[in-house]
């Protein structure tokens, strides 16, 4: 494979792993945030209105930003009725073709997220709630997460192309 592709795979994978490994610890932040809400309300009698909403923002960031890393971890289920009977090379070949569907979906998500973020910035969109937080930060995080997911999918595509030829990169 050309050197530039090998480098691309190396760097994109490294970024996905870094981002994913940072994101995975958000689970503790979610637990802490929700715990804080139940303690302040029940024990201190000082209800906070923002804890659940904050956790909602966190889980959104969690699965969108963690998406690329979960691709590397190969966690996404596939229906393997036929797939599992194929040789490793054939699987890679099939994946090279069907990654088109993955990329199409992700690109539509990206267009949607960008236009939704532009709207949020233009009109200063806020979430309709007591806390009334701005929706701009989470939307920007989502755009970034989807971009990373696309970059990682291209990296996976390169790895599949290599595997289809019987080479292994990274």
């Amino acid at each position, binding site marked *: 494979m050309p050197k530039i592709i090998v480098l691309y795979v190396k760097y994109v994978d490294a970024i996905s792993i870094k981002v*994913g*490994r940072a*994101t*995975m*610890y958000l*689970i*503790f932040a*979610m*637990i802490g*945030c*929700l*715990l804080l*809400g*139940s303690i302040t309300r*029940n024990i201190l009698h000082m209800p906070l209105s923002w804890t*659940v*909403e904050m*956790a*909602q*923002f966190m*889980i*959104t960031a*969690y*699965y*969108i930003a*963690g*998406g690329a*890393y*979960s691709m590397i*971890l190969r*966690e*996404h*289920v*596939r*229906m*393997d*009725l*036929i*797939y599992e009977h*194929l040789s490793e090379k054939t*699987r890679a070949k*099939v*994946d090279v*073709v*069907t*990654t088109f*569907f*993955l990329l*199409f*979906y*992700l690109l*539509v*998500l990206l*267009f*949607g*997220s960008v*236009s*939704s973020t532009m709207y949020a910035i233009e009109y200063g969109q806020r979430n309709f709630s007591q806390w009334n937080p701005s929706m701009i930060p989470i939307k920007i995080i*989502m755009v970034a997460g989807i971009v990373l997911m696309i970059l990682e999918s291209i990296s996976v595509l390169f790895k599949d192309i290599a595997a289809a030829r019987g080479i292994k990169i990274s």
Partner: protein
Amino acid sequence: MSYELIALTMFGGMLLLMLTGQRVFAAIGFVSAAAALLLYGNGAIEMPFNAAFKLFNWYPMLTLPLFVYMGYVLSESGIADDLYTMFHVWFGRINGGLAVGTIGLMVVISAMNGLSVAGMAIGATIALPEMLRRGYDKVMITGVVQAGSSLGILVPPSVVLVLYGMIARQPVGRLWLAGVFPGLMMAAFFAIYIVIRCKMQPELAPVVSKEELDMPFKEKLRYLRAGIIPFLIFFFMTGLFLMGITSLVESSAVGATAATIAAISKGCFTRKVIEESVRKTLGISCMFMWVILAALSFGAVFDGIGAVRAIESLFITTWHLSPWQVLVMMQLSYIIMGMFLDDTAMLVIVAPLYVPLIIHLGFNPIWYGVLYTITCQIAYMTPPFGYNLFLMRAMAPPEITLPDIYRSIVPFVLIMVFSLILIMIFPQITLWLPDYIYAK
């Protein structure tokens, strides 16, 4: 193109794409995105993305990663080992005692967790190797672990019932309580089946030697203490929620904290365990969330073409089905679709189509939630597509082959179908407990 044809094309396209072995979320996402653009033009480009905000507003989904995390901490923390010993000591003398004990273990795990992942992990890593070592029949015990762990989504807490509650707009507390008796009933049926089968074919389950079980009664009581931690976790999580002290998502955070504290107190919360649990939690949660994201977008397109009306008119106006026939058709169609298409996606796509019709026909939506969950359990276990099958294959010891796994579920699926029919005929099995508690 008529709406029926569009709906069929979308389903067919999804099935075809899944057959290629591409990731499930990509298959569903592509069909929904392509259909949105074709049907509604460029204005619909935001549709798949907006599903993320529907998911955002479904805040009870927060319970999903928290339960996954909790499941991994529980299976790593050694709490399950003690419990298994307890069941072993107390049930050892019965025919197939270890298998019955495993069912008991699975019920306790189910009461602490809302998914079947935890039960599967604990069953496959602790119970299976132990029973294999003692010469139990591998096909039978594989079925035991699969069926037992599937109770995780029926016995409260339950993530599937949370998802159903959001789709059907029903209170999660009632749904959870409705799952209690059906869950215990099924567990009892599993146990009865094991005992009878092992009486008839003792070679399936060699009896544990007397010396091993002969211990002073005091010692036996000591083992009961292993049950205290699970009870406390259950109380802090589901108990506080049902008493109205913590909200649903808060209670799952309390449960996750309780499991973490239990692991720390046993000295099992090492760096390696933390890293492992947190990473696996991210992986599994992302897998589910992306599937749900894509399925929500698919559902939105479906909703846009008036699929609910179409199904209603098909069942009632065209086929002249009675309410009960409609119900049976729904369950059958769900089991059949669930075999070939992704089960979680099916739940998200199909439930919004069925639930309004169920309410319209005068059925109780709480009761239907339980029927739906049991159907899900069956769908999760039946080949060729089932999450429990995937998990089992990934976690089971190598001597258990794929045909073993497929064969193992047959008797248990039959028991589940039997339970399903029983609950259809006697709705009180589900409704008695929530009615009793909420009537006060």
